[in-house]
């Protein structure tokens, strides 16, 4: 199916509205944020104008608003910005090979995302103020809710480049992940051409974002799979406490954090010269749906649980250290001469010391997708990592863990996907506008 009915232009169209776009707006519609009383309606439209100053930071004229994460910045939000409590992640398949149609959709998505992250409807008068004979442009379930720190992060899978006939633009770092020992990947929970990561402190706000983008995409993309998550399993800022995963352990103590810009540049953001140029300032997202066999884990002794992890369950300190953030001493030995932290403990295998200095930024969420019909919770960790080069960071780390980590006995990787997330959006950019240029 090819969407050729629109303006005939070879590639890079401007982000204009298509004729089938939602009803034209007149400003001053029902603003979610206004309803909530956080700010005046006038500010709602400031996003586009303020964005012009992105290159020199976003200070010019823009006042930080509580619960609003700036949409336009040097890097995409939802990576190094503070991890929110809730996730709705969606992976889309392209249903067209028409680059113009795809670019146009990404532009429409950027417009809607910018509004939603500011706490507004997808379009002015979107939910209830439009033509009563037309379906509402905004689905409405977020009316009256604040922005709730909504971030919308978009990336492109390897198949995106193949389907659009631009395989030469596919980054080398985006080569397909190799199989790992123990993988039980379900194709219906894996892969995809475009991802949308919507994170918010309110699950309804995150779901609203994905739902409205999915709806806008009919005819160009269709949802391949999606995943809800709760209880962030990592902190991306030193201001945040380390949360616990469903094994009951603090997770991501050693995460790369926003307060470490040099570390972010080294491990997370694609640097000039890494190639391709349109990815500079971007990052790669690796998602793994990791089912936890929590019933068997729960009947494992505390001692064994802690030995598998290499940390205590309560404080989260590495063995031999007192506090959670005291650096683990991997060489430390007990009175019996054996390593305090086992040779195959999770934190040792995943540590930068053991992996030639490799670190990753983790931003995953817990999930419980009901039950599996055999009396067990379908629960686990929706692992999300952001890295500068997955081939050099995620692949070696996961290979070691899959082969050696005793925790694998309680885990099963049931979904896998990887996406190239372009840098932040400036001015009237949309995701991939540099790629299509």
């Amino acid at each position, binding site marked *: *199916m090819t*969407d*050729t*009915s*629109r303006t005939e232009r070879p590639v890079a169209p401007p982000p204009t509205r*298509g*004729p*089938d776009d939602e*009803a034209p707006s007149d400003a001053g519609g029902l603003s979610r944020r206004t309803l909530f009383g956080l700010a005046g309606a006038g500010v709602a439209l400031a996003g586009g104008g303020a964005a012009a100053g992105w290159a020199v930071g976003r200070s010019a004229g823009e006042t930080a608003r509580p619960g609003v994460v700036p949409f336009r910045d040097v890097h995409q939000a939802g990576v190094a910005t503070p991890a929110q409590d809730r996730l709705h992640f969606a992976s889309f398949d392209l*249903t067209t090979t028409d680059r113009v149609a795809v670019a146009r959709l990404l532009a429409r998505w950027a417009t809607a995302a910018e509004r939603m992250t500011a706490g507004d409807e997808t379009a002015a008068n979107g939910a209830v103020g439009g*033509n009563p*004979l*037309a*379906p509402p442009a905004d689905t409405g379930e977020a009316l009256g809710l604040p922005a709730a720190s909504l971030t919308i992060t978009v990336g492109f899978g390897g198949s995106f480049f193949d389907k659009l006939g631009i395989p030469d633009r596919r980054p080398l770092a985006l080569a397909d992940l190799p199989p790992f020992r123990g993988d039980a990947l379900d194709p*219906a929970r894996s892969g995809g051409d475009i991802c949308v990561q919507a994170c918010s402190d309110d699950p309804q706000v995150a779901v609203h974002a994905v739902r409205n983008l999915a*709806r806008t995409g*009919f*005819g*160009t993309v*269709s949802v391949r799979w999606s995943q809800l998550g709760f209880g962030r399993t990592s902190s991306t800022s030193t201001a945040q406490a380390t949360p616990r995963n469903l094994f009951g352990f603090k997770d991501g103590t050693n995460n790369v954090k926003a307060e470490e810009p040099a570390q972010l540049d080294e491990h997370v953001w694609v640097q000039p010269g890494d190639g391709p140029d349109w990815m500079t300032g971007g990052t790669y997202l690796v998602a793994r749906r990791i089912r936890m066999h929590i019933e068997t884990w729960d009947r494992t002794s505390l001692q064994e649980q802690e030995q598998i992890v290499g940390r205590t369950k309560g404080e989260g300190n590495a063995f031999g250290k007192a506090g959670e953030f005291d650096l683990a001493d991997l060489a430390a030995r007990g009175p019996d001469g054996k390593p305090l932290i086992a040779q195959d403990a999770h934190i040792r295998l995943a540590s930068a010391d053991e992996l030639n200095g490799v670190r990753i930024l983790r931003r995953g969420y817990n999930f419980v997708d009901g039950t599996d019909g055999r009396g067990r919770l379908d629960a686990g960790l929706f692992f999300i990592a952001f890295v500068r080069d997955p081939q050099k960071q995620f692949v070696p780390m996961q290979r070691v863990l899959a082969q050696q980590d005793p925790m694998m006995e309680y885990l099963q990787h049931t979904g896998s996907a990887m996406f190239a997330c372009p840098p932040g959006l400036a001015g009237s950019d949309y995701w991939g506008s540099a790629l299509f240029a």
Partner: protein
Amino acid sequence: MPRRTAATVLAAAAAAAVLAGCTSTAPPAENVSGGAGGPIKVAAADSSCDVTTKEAPAGTISFTVTNTGSKVTEFYLYATGDRIMGEVENIGPGLTRDLIVEVPDGGTYTTACKPGMVGDGIRAAFTVTGNAARSVDQNTRLAEATAGYKRYVNSQIEALVPKTEEFAAAVKAGDVARAKALFPVSRTYWERIEPVAESFSDIDPKVDGRDDGEPGVAFTGYHRLEKDLWETGLQSDSPAMADALVADMKDLQTRVATLELTPVQLANGAKELLDEVATGKITGEEDRYSHTDLWDFKANVEGSQAAVAALRPVIDEKDKALGPLLDQRFAAVDTLLEQYRVGDGYKLYTELTPEDTKKMSDVVNALAEPISQVAVVVTS
């Protein structure tokens, strides 16, 4: 197309009966012109469609269609977007039928013969010159749209009643194989105009209700007979069920005759037909015993397209891009469905994989989204 099944099983007597009830879907005209003197002759053979004149002045145009082939055929005059300007159906071999159609606007149209009453037919361009003298304002166009769709609904009901009678007769004769073959064929005409039928809230549950086990609610109509034919075997009251189904269809026919439709109802009907596909057919819930859901799927889409086609002149006036987009998305649905054709019909729902139904869902979503904008476009 299920209608091809109909053609092959249609007895000559039944064909004659249909003929009596079904003639032109266009209104009778006062000044009939058929181009250069008299009606335009059409020879509809099995592999050709010979229209003697390719051009006529705007106004009332008359065709005389003779079936020179061996299959039951149809003849159509289409405007842009396959908007049916007029059609004659069920022309048996050797028979001649007239089509009188009013074409007020000049432009390029399409003639089509459909031997076997299947597919897009054998098509050719047909030019209408000039414009019939008239003043066309918005209300006129909208009135023409509703009148055009009303003609479509009538043409479907004119086929629905005899097809249901054939189906009922097979049930009453205990001819299970024939009844099974006629079941999806009869339903095709019902499914094409389902939103209209559903507007009579007492008829729909009797004709198309499903077995939900609700206490005090009788399980009757198509799906009751479907269960008898495919699952439990014919029951002692199956003939009574068949008679009741025919009576309900005749009741529907009587009531539709006085039905007034608005443009918004047309637009919403087009959307509702796709909703039917999305929630009932792609899930295999509609025909849970026969699994002939794809026949219904196709019929729903055809009905939706007919409603949109009737509105097409208004759509084109208001939003130049919407019509071509709808054409393209309807075509995508047709192309996909063709992949599941088997002989005269379609694969059973139980033969579809999750990948198949995902593809169907995608093309229907892609189509339904712009269709949901039609109501506001035609009333803006």
